């Protein structure tokens, strides 16, 4: 297990070096360079400053850019997290149903729903959803992550926690208001996640239903719900998680596009505003932070898979 971890960390190192090269070249080309030293020494200086945590100062508000970027990105993650929970709650049961009733009516109708998520562009759906409150009469906010009436200081970046911190002033109304603001953007993101999850779940379930141990379970006289609950579910999860791990970057980029439409104060909005106003340092910072996060998350998910799925452990040992 430990050796596996070390191996993954080696890979992480190589990828992060490539990442810093990309971020450095963007910064070099846009923000400017000192012409008195050559590119390599500038690159080394850049690496040293990154490792100390100083990525520079934003041109817009003269604050250290790392802090702003982290706070913005955590908001995005908050949105992704909510969307993920919504999507799992809806998508996993639907996917299981589709996988079990393969090639029947229910399967086709569920897959049509899943195709919607593939076919529609993200920003279009988001824009339609901003008009939704007006069309349906359902009163929902479409802008920002909390109403402008509440003055909530960005302490941690996770608005849920920040809005609880001002509870002496507003009781719980700020927290509640934030929850309501999350619903629409999270629903839009969840639509796309749902189609992903339905497809992955259905595929995984189908593969497992064809496997031998399910046949054996049949012969032991279990009823289908029992088999699904006891054997199928636990074995279906690892492939799904593995595939989702590859989709994390897509999900984050969708989330950023949705944020721009809903003016939700996350990494997407921050990047958009920075680029509009000419602060290109945000680009390289965003690359470092977002890609770095995705890398680390991949490793964590891998470790998680190894923990929960005994078969993956076999892969580990076989390598030794």
């Amino acid at each position: 297990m430990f050796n596996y971890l070390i191996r993954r960390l080696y890979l992480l190192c190589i990828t992060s070096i490539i990442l810093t090269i990309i971020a450095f070249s963007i910064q070099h080309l846009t923000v400017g360079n000192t012409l008195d030293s050559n590119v390599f020494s500038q690159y080394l200086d850049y690496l040293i400053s990154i490792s100390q945590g100083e990525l520079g100062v934003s041109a817009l508000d003269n604050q250290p850019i790392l802090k702003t970027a982290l706070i913005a990105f955590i908001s995005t993650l908050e949105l992704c997290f909510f969307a993920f929970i919504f999507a799992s709650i809806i998508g996993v049961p639907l996917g299981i149903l589709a996988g079990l009733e393969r090639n029947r009516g229910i399967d086709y109708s569920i897959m049509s729903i899943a195709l919607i998520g593939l076919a529609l562009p993200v920003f279009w759906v988001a824009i339609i959803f901003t008009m939704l409150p007006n069309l349906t009469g359902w009163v929902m906010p479409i802008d920002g992550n909390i109403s402008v009436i509440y003055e909530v200081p960005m302490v941690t970046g996770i608005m849920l926690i920040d809005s609880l911190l001002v509870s002496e002033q507003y009781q719980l109304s700020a927290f509640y208001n934030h929850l309501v603001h999350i619903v629409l953007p999270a629903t839009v993101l969840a639509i796309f996640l749902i189609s992903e999850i339905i497809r992955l779940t259905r595929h995984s379930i189908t593969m497992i239903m064809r496997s031998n141990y399910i046949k054996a379970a049949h012969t032991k006289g279990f009823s289908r719900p029992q088999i699904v609950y006891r054997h199928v579910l636990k074995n279906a999860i690892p492939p799904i998680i593995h595939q989702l791990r590859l989709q994390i970057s897509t999900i984050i980029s969708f989330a950023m596009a949705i944020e721009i439409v809903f003016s939700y104060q996350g990494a997407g909005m921050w990047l958009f505003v920075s680029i509009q106003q000419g602060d290109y340092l945000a680009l390289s910072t965003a690359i470092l932070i977002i890609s770095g996060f995705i890398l680390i998350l991949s490793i964590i998910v891998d470790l998680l898979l190894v923990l929960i799925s005994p078969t993956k452990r076999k892969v580990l040992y076989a390598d030794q």
Partner: protein
Amino acid sequence: MRFLPIYFSLAFISACYQTESTITDTLLYCSDKAPHSFNPQISHDVATLDATTHQLYNRLVKIDPISQRFVSDIALRWEVNSKKTEYTFYLRRDVNFHHNDYFTPSRQLNAEDVIFSFDRMLAKEHPFHLTNVVAETYLYNHPFSNLVADIVKVDDYTIRFMLNKSDATLLANLAAHYAVIHSKEYAQLLLENDNKAQIDYLPIGTGPYQFKQNSTKRLIRFQAHTKPWEKPSNIKQLIFDVTPNSTKRYAKLLSGECDIITNPAPSQVKQISKNELFSLSSQPTGNVALIAFNTKSKSLQNSDVRHALSSAIDRQTILDAVYFENATAANNLLPSNSWAYNPRAPLVYYTPEHSREKLQNGEFDFSQTLRIVAPIKSSIFNPNFYKTAELIQSNLATIGVNTEIIQLRNEELNATLMAGEYDLYLTGISPYIKDPDNLFRPLFSCSSNQIEGNTGQWCDTKVQALLDNTLLETNFVQRVKNYYQLQEYTQDQLIYLPIAHLLRFDVFNNNISGLQMNPLTGIDLHSVNKVPPLTKEQIK
């Protein structure tokens, strides 16, 4: 499956959500641009005016919206000497400055503050004269600085303006947006802390709302003045939310996240006016969009040619296609509600066949190509310069005149104007004060160059004399006569062809009352009253 109830219950929670429109002591105003600064002395864009003139500051006098007369603001009363060269103002004694986390006033407003505020615009030795001032120095002090020679303090609550020459327009100038009163004490404090620039970005004034320090560029927060000297406002918290996208702005109005929006998309105005829940307010702004004929260019020196070209341009189509409903047709440079408007000045009609004849009779050289110059960026005069130019081009092509469209950016545009390398120029004029002199002088005066407004490059002793005399004229009737004459003459010469008088649109929720809109100085939210909104069922 058994988690579905959780999701639905979350959705139901949001059904109990009440929008901001139900909170009656907070007002949300959604504008389309962020203000350049918070001092209307140096920034003249609409967003700054909206945010500051009536909200943060007071002036010596203001114009009553109903009677259109000058009423007192900070100045209780005033006296004018017989030669109209000295104006004496007596100030109120109970005016408090804003008191917030970055400034605590130790005294009330007195003459020192007034003198400080005006001196900043006039006197070059003033410590704050050059602070934050960008290249538009022309706009900084031009109308005012030529007028006022000196401001004298008579006593703590009395000041006297000494004018260069006899002038009737001082009051109009003092009611304009740039005549706001700052706090000298605050300026001193900033000077000591070596933080002069802050005076325009963390403002202190005397108006009904005071600035909150935690505002950002996109979100400006005001709270009600803690010690107001006028009637306190019903709104305790005022928030300016900058939403550049016009569809989004309207959507926010519909979803209750904005109470008032400004500048809706022109194509949506008709739709908005049909909605029963909202009221659409349209105000003429005094801004005129026009086509300037370069009278110094070879082909356009003859006024008949200019007439012919003007009658070939279908202005109604331009109004419909480019402005939708955001403007009214203009035949005259002045708006029809101005006291100097001459209804009998010669009009221009759309007669393309006639123009062709006229041009042929006048031996116009059809082989040449006229240059139509326009800015690239859309401005308050025109949401789409290119479309306008295209329409003009096709109109002129039907009578056989060749044209080419050239769009330029700022610096190149200024260079081309100064060099005179243009035949037609798409522009507009935006007067600051209600005096017609403010409209005509930049267009026709010999001392005004192309960048300052005289893109027709017109210089005529007759017009100049009319302008200068009327400025000093004290007899009102004579002034009207003079301006009538001016209009007849200039419209006969057709140096400028007016296209549209621009309107300003604001949309607000029906539960808001007391909104005042002054086209020259911006929106006034002081007396706004907000009641809980009616639901759709209650309206029916």
